[in-house]
């Protein structure tokens, strides 16, 4: 009898003492897979920085209220070392060992696809900023049971970006040219992203009335003079340099020296970088950002974002704006969880996201996901005054409502 009462007292004592200290704060595990080292580190770092900023802001504002409890985000960041094997190992660790509910990443199309095979099977949400996913997001793959049902593409569909960009470029360049431009040459690196992006951009330009020639160069080209000379021989009105930023920054000065065209467009070159490199041209030059520019932000809310982003220690690089492809979706996911009321119902969360309209930083109009889990927003295009390196005039043209003729969408 005495033993029993001692045991009861001991149990009550233990029960009192061992009660969790902070019963209020639960943990929401979120993973990030990005290149923190290896050759894609400049893009990968921006994903990590955006995740950290969003997490800090959400947690500092009190966390997420889900089903009567308060959740704080716990970020699990895994370096993919720019290697697909490590990406898969990291995804497996996050999904199976740690048990995250959602993963943000990666900067590379191939890695994102391989990762989606793992997250999809485990009902873990995935947010990837690769427009090239459009090629695999179809009715079958996003349907319940499909491998992309839990994956969301946070970069606009390529035909939208191309449409928005084409409108912006032509609207900025046409007033400065001797006669309205008719003949465009699109110059792009012959790798996965380049092939994908250019196929849509060509259609977008054609829809705006341009006659277009497409020239693809080997991705590791450093001496562009033979190909640029060839383009010069085509007598273009505008040469559009698409993807990637480094190659464009190599080719563009060579094009200026060879006097290839009366006007230029540089995809993915932020005005901040143009200014930093002190580039100067006596011909009009336009450039676009992915998706909006940090060197010349169009809206106060974007300026504010970049101020906080750089304050956290992120470096000012050509890819800094890519962070905006990942930032807003932390807040959208949090809102969806609040609506569903539980962290263990991924199907309900997917449905909530598909119905949601959210005013984020990246776009002046609210963000929504379409039936194929893709967002829509405009791309900022800037014109630099000829003869200067820092006098910019920017525009944000909304994308067309439908894909242009010949473009299958996606």
């Amino acid at each position, binding site marked *: 009898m005495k033993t029993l009462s001692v045991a009861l007292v001991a149990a009550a004592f233990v029960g009192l003492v061992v009660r969790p200290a902070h019963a209020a704060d639960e943990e929401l595990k979120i993973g990030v897979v990005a290149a923190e*080292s*290896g050759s894609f580190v400049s893009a990968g770092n921006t994903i990590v920085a955006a995740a950290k900023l969003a997490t800090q802001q959400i947690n500092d504002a009190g966390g997420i209220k889900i089903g009567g409890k308060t959740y704080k985000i716990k970020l699990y960041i895994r370096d993919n*070392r*720019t*290697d*697909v*094997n*490590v990406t*898969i*190992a*990291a995804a*497996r*660790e996050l*999904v*199976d*060992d740690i048990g995250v509910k959602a993963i943000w990443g990666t900067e590379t*199309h*191939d890695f994102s*696809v*391989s990762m989606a*095979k793992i997250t999809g*099977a485990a009902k873990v949400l995935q947010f990837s900023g690769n427009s*090239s996913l459009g*090629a*695999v997001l179809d009715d079958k793959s996003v349907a319940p049971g499909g491998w992309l049902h839990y994956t969301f593409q946070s970069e606009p569909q390529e035909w939208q970006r191309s449409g928005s960009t084409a409108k912006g470029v032509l609207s900025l360049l046409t007033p400065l040219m001797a006669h309205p431009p008719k003949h465009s040459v699109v110059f792009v690196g*012959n*790798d*996965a*992203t*380049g*092939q*994908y992006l250019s196929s849509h951009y060509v259609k977008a330009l054609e829809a705006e009335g341009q006659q277009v020639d497409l020239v693809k160069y*080997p991705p590791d080209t450093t001496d562009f003079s033979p190909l640029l000379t060839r383009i010069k021989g085509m007598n273009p009105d505008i040469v559009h340099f698409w993807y990637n930023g480094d190659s464009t920054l190599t080719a563009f000065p060579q094009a200026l020296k060879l006097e290839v065209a009366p006007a230029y467009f540089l995809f993915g070159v932020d005005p901040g970088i143009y200014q930093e490199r002190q580039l100067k041209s006596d011909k009009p030059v336009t450039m676009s950002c992915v998706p909006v520019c940090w060197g010349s932000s169009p809206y106060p809310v974007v300026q504010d974002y970049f101020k906080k982003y750089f304050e956290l220690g992120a470096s000012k690089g050509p890819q800094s704006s890519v962070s905006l492809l990942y930032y807003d979706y932390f807040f959208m996911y949090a809102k969806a969880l609040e609506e569903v009321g539980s962290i263990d119902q991924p199907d309900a969360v997917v449905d909530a996201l598909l119905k949601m309209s959210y005013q984020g930083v990246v776009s002046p109009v609210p963000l929504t996901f379409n039936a194929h889990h893709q967002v829509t927003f405009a791309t900022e295009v800037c014109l630099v005054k000829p003869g200067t390196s820092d006098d910019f005039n920017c525009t944000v043209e909304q994308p067309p409502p439908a894909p242009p003729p010949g473009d299958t969408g996606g």
Partner: protein
Amino acid sequence: MMSPRPSRQEIVAAVVVLVFLVSFPWLNPGYRYLSLAITTGITSIALYGLGIQFGQAGIMSVGHAAFIGIGAYTAAILAGRLGVGFWLALPCSTLLSAVFAGLIGLPSLRVGGQHYIIITFCFCALFDLALTNGGTFTGAATGLDVGSIDPIFGLNFDQLRNSYYLVVVMLLICLLATYLMMNSSYGRTLRAIRENEPLARAVGINTALHKIGALMVSGAFAGTAGILQAYYLRHISPGLYGPFPSLYLALMVMLGGARLLYGPLAGAIIVSFLPEILKLDPIDSRIAYGIGLLVVILLLPGGVSSGLLEIYRWLMSGRRR
């Protein structure tokens, strides 16, 4: 004529390796390490090809990744276009890679080692380019997607452990094949050709046949690795099979030791796991591999595995005293 029965050392080593490979998933490594183990195993199967080709026959190639690619793309194209699953595609991948390896090997009969190295590099670059420009047939630069391995004997391969054992079985087959080849008259002939080809020819050996044969075996191993990789990554693209991945394969096999039975496996494990365990930045780990390679060449020409063998022998001899 087979050599005499395996020595006690060899049996002990084989048992140790076997026990380790089989028991690994039960040592609670976690999914991350299990996944890395699978990809390491696949790489080492390809490295055994280089082991036969270079370690035994002395023909170095920096285009080996292309043969892995042939195996991978064969599997992906068969699955995507003809609905052929893993098990039927496996012999196709292996065979096709072997055939191509033989064809690309023909120039080696005519030119010297250094020339051949450049030629293999060029062929690999051409292969990469052909895949990139291959339109919808090869998926162009975006690549191809692959489904899962069809279950067999009730084993589902979406379960990581089962995939691991599949790779281990393939690896053991490779190890056995390598062992048998090394210790047979075929292996001795290859080594004779490696050491002094004109002499071998003078003695009546058909060096051309033997060299092409070794290259085809190497290709077969690579093809097997390729189809396993395609079904594990579930997405392949040209970048995986270009000349620079080939260079790293050559580096791995030299680091581990091309001539010893466990050399290729050691090389793959070192390159895949050391940076993990030491939490080394990929830049620093690559510098470490480079330095490791220099150390190996200058001090341990047989590779890390031969160094380990020396240590083992020294320990054993110390014991007996």
